[in-house]
């Protein structure tokens, strides 16, 4: 593998210093040594959740074996170690995307972070006559909280359309903002269905100029490309650990400090208070004000190990690797008869995934037939039912790549799909 990688040319302008695009890190991921039904595991569902490198498991194991105590309460030495581990992890994780730890909040997942913004900001800042703007390509996590908060406040929920290429229009964003009632715009950095990479910095600048705040769902972006939250200019930027080689149970929210300070807390209880009287309480400082109860300590330690691992690979190289695989995947899929891919045709305009349909073969059956060849792909609406309706499909199959994906696995997918068509007599 390394030999092959060294002869491969990285995509122009992506990899620095002529770094090879292929990462050859398979041995770092214990699960990839598994066989399923007598076949090697071909995991093409990293957009759902990534596999984990051994260093993440080791970091969590080491923390639980040697440094476990609750945080922010103990005076004893072990508790101080736990504090140092948790807050050290926060600094590492925030630094990975160029943000400050004080306004980096840990929650359960992206869904919870968006609910945090929707409730803690929305309930006090939205009213009848206001609008929340989202897009047709959002994951349910970035749809349903806004539906609920609009119902509660009387604000209107409007959508930016997705065009036939699977992209948003900057003209439409400007038009919507010009109506003067939009208070908040929430959108995905990278679509989990279309793969579309939205022009975040350009959009947040337009949104800020219109006096609205921006909320960006970076769940699909942080694992596969360099992300600098400050350069992106978002007021809120959310992502999740388990898609970025880390454990489940930890979501990350970066927020603009002055907005977070102006907000009421979301969940309330232990650890997020300054003082509790019989009738009222005062709130702890950032970020603790938004972390009620015992936080995901071991998970933060695991995620810090994950982002150190990613930083070690170099996010420019990760991006080049995923783009190369995406290009190979788009080409291989195009050669399967009756197959249509949704989203932008150019690999450089999309993240490392492809959603597709095959004429005469339902996505559920595609996933079942691929599974027979040891290939894990997802089938369904991918938590994006409004988008499915917009695309005019009930569901799609989706293949997605990770840092450990190899070109031969893309070829195995294409072969499995061809075989599946044969089973159905197509």
């Amino acid at each position, binding site marked *: 593998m390394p030999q092959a990688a060294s002869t491969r040319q990285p995509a122009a302008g992506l990899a620095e210093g002529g770094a090879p695009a292929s990462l050859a890190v398979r041995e770092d991921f214990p699960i990839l040594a598994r066989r399923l039904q007598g076949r090697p595991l071909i995991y093409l569902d990293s957009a759902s959740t990534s596999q984990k490198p051994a260093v993440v498991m080791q970091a969590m194991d080491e923390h639980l074996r040697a440094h476990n105590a609750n945080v922010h309460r103990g005076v004893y030495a072990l508790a101080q170690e736990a504090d140092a581990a948790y807050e050290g992890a926060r600094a590492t994780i925030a630094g990975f995307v160029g943000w400050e730890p004080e306004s980096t909040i840990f929650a359960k997942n992206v869904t919870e972070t968006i609910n945090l913004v929707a409730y803690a900001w929305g309930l006090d800042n939205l009213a009848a006559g206001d609008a929340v703007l989202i897009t047709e390509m959002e994951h349910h996590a970035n749809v349903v909280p806004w539906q609920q908060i609009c119902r509660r406040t009387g604000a209107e929920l409007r959508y930016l359309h997705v065009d036939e290429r699977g992209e948003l229009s900057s003209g439409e964003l400007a038009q919507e903002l010009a109506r003067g009632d939009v208070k908040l715009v929430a959108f995905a950095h990278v679509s989990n269905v279309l793969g579309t990479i939205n022009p975040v910095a350009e959009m947040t600048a337009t949104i800020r100029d219109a006096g609205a705040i921006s909320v960006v769902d970076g769940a699909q972006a942080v694992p596969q490309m360099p992300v600098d939250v400050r350069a992106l200019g978002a007021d809120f930027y959310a992502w999740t650990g388990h898609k970025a080689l880390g454990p489940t149970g930890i979501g990350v929210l970066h927020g603009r400090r002055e907005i977070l300070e102006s907000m009421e807390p979301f969940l309330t209880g232990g650890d997020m208070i300054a003082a509790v009287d019989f009738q009222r309480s005062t709130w702890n400082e950032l970020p603790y004000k938004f972390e009620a109860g015992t936080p995901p300590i071991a998970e933060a330690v695991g995620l810090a190990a994950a982002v150190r691992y990613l930083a070690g690979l170099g996010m420019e190289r990760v991006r080049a690797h995923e783009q190369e695989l995406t290009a190979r995947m788009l080409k291989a899929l195009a050669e399967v008869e009756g197959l249509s891919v949704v989203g932008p045709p150019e690999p450089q305009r999309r993240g490392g995934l492809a959603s597709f349909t095959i004429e005469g073969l*339902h996505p*559920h059956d595609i996933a*079942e037939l691929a599974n027979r060849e040891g290939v894990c792909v997802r089938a369904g609406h991918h938590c994006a039912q409004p988008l499915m309706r917009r695309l005019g499909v009930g569901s799609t199959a989706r293949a997605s790549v990770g840092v450990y994906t190899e070109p031969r696995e893309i070829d195995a997918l294409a072969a499995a799909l061809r075989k599946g068509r044969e*089973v*159905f007599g197509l």
Partner: protein
Amino acid sequence: MSEDELYREQILEHYKRPHNFGELTPHDLEAFEQNPLCGDELGVHIQVDDGRIADLRFHGHGCAISQAAASIASDELKGMPLDQAGSLSADWMIDLLGIPISPTRRKCALLNLKVMRRAITGDSGWPTGVG
């Protein structure tokens, strides 16, 4: 292809050319259901005569298993007393399909019973049974 347990010739035949698919106008009973896992949709129209299913049509879209199950069941359901049709168990459907159904495909196989039961009894739960 003959050795394929799940995608037997008969299943694929029903998938490609489903029996009793379409709409019935007029109809006495109707319901519409989605499988929230995969976005499959299935509706049913039923004409009732003397307490029995005189005729029925399924409509919607779904995978080979959900469509074949609806097609195969539709042949059995014609003429069946309503109270019997409304209380069919999961086992009835799985046995009728005659193929191994994994836990993840169970809801595909049972979607048609769910929609039919809803049309007849208003109960929106999934059919139960050992499976």
